[in-house]
């Protein structure tokens, strides 16, 4: 088949203009899509940008007598004066500040910060990534706590330019949580509470670690989405929890916190147990494609509470206990 030329003869200049316009529209749309996608990935498990290794210090200078510390954006943060109006835009830090006894000073949170339940009384100011600067400023904060990711860098810079103390904390790993607890404790004038929260989480984790030390270590996969299959990788605190609870994450060597994998690859790695929890989305793929995973076929699926495991915060110890009990029902986990 051949195509007769169109009726109005093509004018090369017009065509070029049209093409440029078309390409621009497509390019802009693509970039928008890409940004959204990265946002989504970050928000899903806020740790996929950068190396996400635990050696990244939360506060490089955790010297108890320091009056200025360096945060995870590389900026310096003064510890004094004690802030009276705190905006926390990260479920982890909001929960932590409440646990430190600083709840009366929290004047804003992100809409995803819903723990503890009392936090819901605090006005939600919007997203945790790329937050609305205007709404944050309108809350007249003297301290803004942000999750440290490149997506939040512009907000961090603008808040600082507006003369507001902003601190960027990257909390992807258990060690980072413990440092954040100590740092925020000191900033809020509740250093003892900070030490206590960090120490008690560490003590619980140590207890679970020693209780599972001599138990057999099953291999596990921890999917957080059925379709596409998204699993917990080595970059996530949840992989550390698996380790502490006495099992081996078959994706523990992948640096990403929550990589998308193929279901066939899950089958090929043949984990002994599938952990469910951390996923709220019902998906028909659990009963179709996932049913091919031998552990699912054999009924070797354990469940932990999404509430408990969905953020690296004050319940990390309880999360490890719950996971260890689920993985080792025969053992006594204190």
């Amino acid at each position, binding site marked *: 088949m051949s195509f007769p030329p169109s009726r109005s003869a093509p004018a090369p200049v017009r065509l070029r203009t*049209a093409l440029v316009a078309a390409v621009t529209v497509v390019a802009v749309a693509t970039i*928008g899509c890409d940004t959204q*996608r990265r946002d989504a990935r970050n928000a899903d498990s806020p740790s996929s940008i950068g190396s996400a290794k635990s050696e990244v210090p939360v506060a490089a200078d955790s010297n108890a007598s320091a009056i200025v510390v360096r945060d995870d954006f590389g900026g310096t943060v003064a510890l004094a004066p004690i802030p009276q109006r705190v905006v926390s835009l990260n479920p982890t830090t909001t929960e932590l500040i409440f646990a430190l006894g600083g709840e009366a000073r929290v004047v804003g949170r992100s809409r995803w910060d819903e723990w503890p339940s009392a936090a819901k009384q605090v006005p939600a100011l919007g997203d945790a990534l790329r937050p609305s600067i205007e709404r944050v400023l309108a809350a007249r904060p003297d301290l803004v706590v942000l999750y440290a990711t490149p997506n939040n860098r512009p907000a961090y810079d603008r808040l600082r330019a507006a003369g507001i103390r902003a601190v960027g904390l990257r909390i992807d790993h258990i060690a980072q949580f413990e440092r954040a607890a100590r740092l925020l404790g000191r900033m809020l004038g509740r250093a003892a509470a900070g030490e206590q929260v960090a120490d008690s989480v560490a003590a619980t984790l140590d207890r679970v670690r020693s209780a599972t030390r001599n138990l057999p270590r099953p291999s596990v996969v921890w999917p957080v989405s059925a379709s596409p299959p998204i699993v917990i990788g080595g970059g996530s605190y949840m992989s550390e929890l698996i380790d502490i609870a006495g099992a081996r994450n078959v994706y523990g060597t992948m640096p990403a916190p929550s990589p998308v*994998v193929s279901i066939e690859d899950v089958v090929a790695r043949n984990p002994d147990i599938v952990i469910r929890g951390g996923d709220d989305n019902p998906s028909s793929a659990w009963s179709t*494609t996932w049913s*091919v995973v031998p552990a699912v076929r054999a009924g070797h699926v354990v469940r932990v509470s999404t509430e408990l495991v969905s953020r690296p915060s004050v319940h990390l110890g309880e999360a490890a206990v719950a996971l260890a009990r689920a993985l080792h029902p025969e053992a006594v986990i204190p």
Partner: protein
Amino acid sequence: MMRHRAWHWGAAAVGLVVVALVAVALGAVRVPLHDLFAIMRGAAPVSTREIVLTLRAPRVVLAALVGAALGASGATMQATLRNPLAEPYLLGVSGGAAVGAVGAMVLRFPAAAWPIGAFIGSGVAVALALGVARGAGTLRAADPRTLLMAGVVVGALANAIVMIALANVPPETVRGALWWMMGSVGDATWTSVAWLAGYALITIVYLLVQAPTIDALTLGDDAAAGLGVQVESATTRAFLTAALLAAATVAAAGLVGFVGLIVPYLARGAGLSRQRDVLVGSLFIGAALVIVADLAARVAMPPSELPLGAVTAVLGVPFFLVQLRRLR
């Protein structure tokens, strides 16, 4: 002549089966060919059987159906609009379908309702694109560039609506929806295969029946009218059928672009010229192309998979540029 052609179609069918078998054999878990035959005899280990029968076979069949449907849709659109760049993806049909399906997802309709959303969305997109194009007179009189621009504009609008819809939902939904929009046959089940197969069968048979009319249309409006064809209504019917066929693939596998562009081009390049031949050729070529693209998506970057739509776009963009150059 007839025998010669039958021989060609036979070879195409055998070739497609070989491509499909290779695609079933390759993947994260290698399944040797003799194991495939063992499965057919019922003698393979359960794990291999499950991988092949539950994961790979439906996936490969769905890929074939998506490719065949998009090929047929593109072949019909190109012929009826006499526009070598007409393609469901570029004309905004797929984008409209995505709006409908994402809308259904965001409103938390069950997965079974997503295809309905896709159909409605594609219908609206088609109406919009046709409306824009008709600004230049009748649909068929529209300059190919006008149609293309109408498609781009509708596609951009669809993209914007999807972004707005996703702005206020939990991150997990966003990630899932975006992954779905990038196209994948990874969720294939025999149920989804059966749905698309049933739908594609009806529409493709209709398009085959309409093929002689479409041949008449390619002669030009006056000649077609002289042959007793009601030009505008025949064009609209064929175009709408092709659009709904594309919408069915979007519901089953998300956005898989450029297949409808490349495939008819390859069919014509293989020397096929009558619409019925181009259509059947497009079915075979489209099926093989998407099977191969999905295979590449599966094995290129283990343990992850690439989005199918990204692979087909990489294949399709050079074709688009070549075709655009020819238009000048």
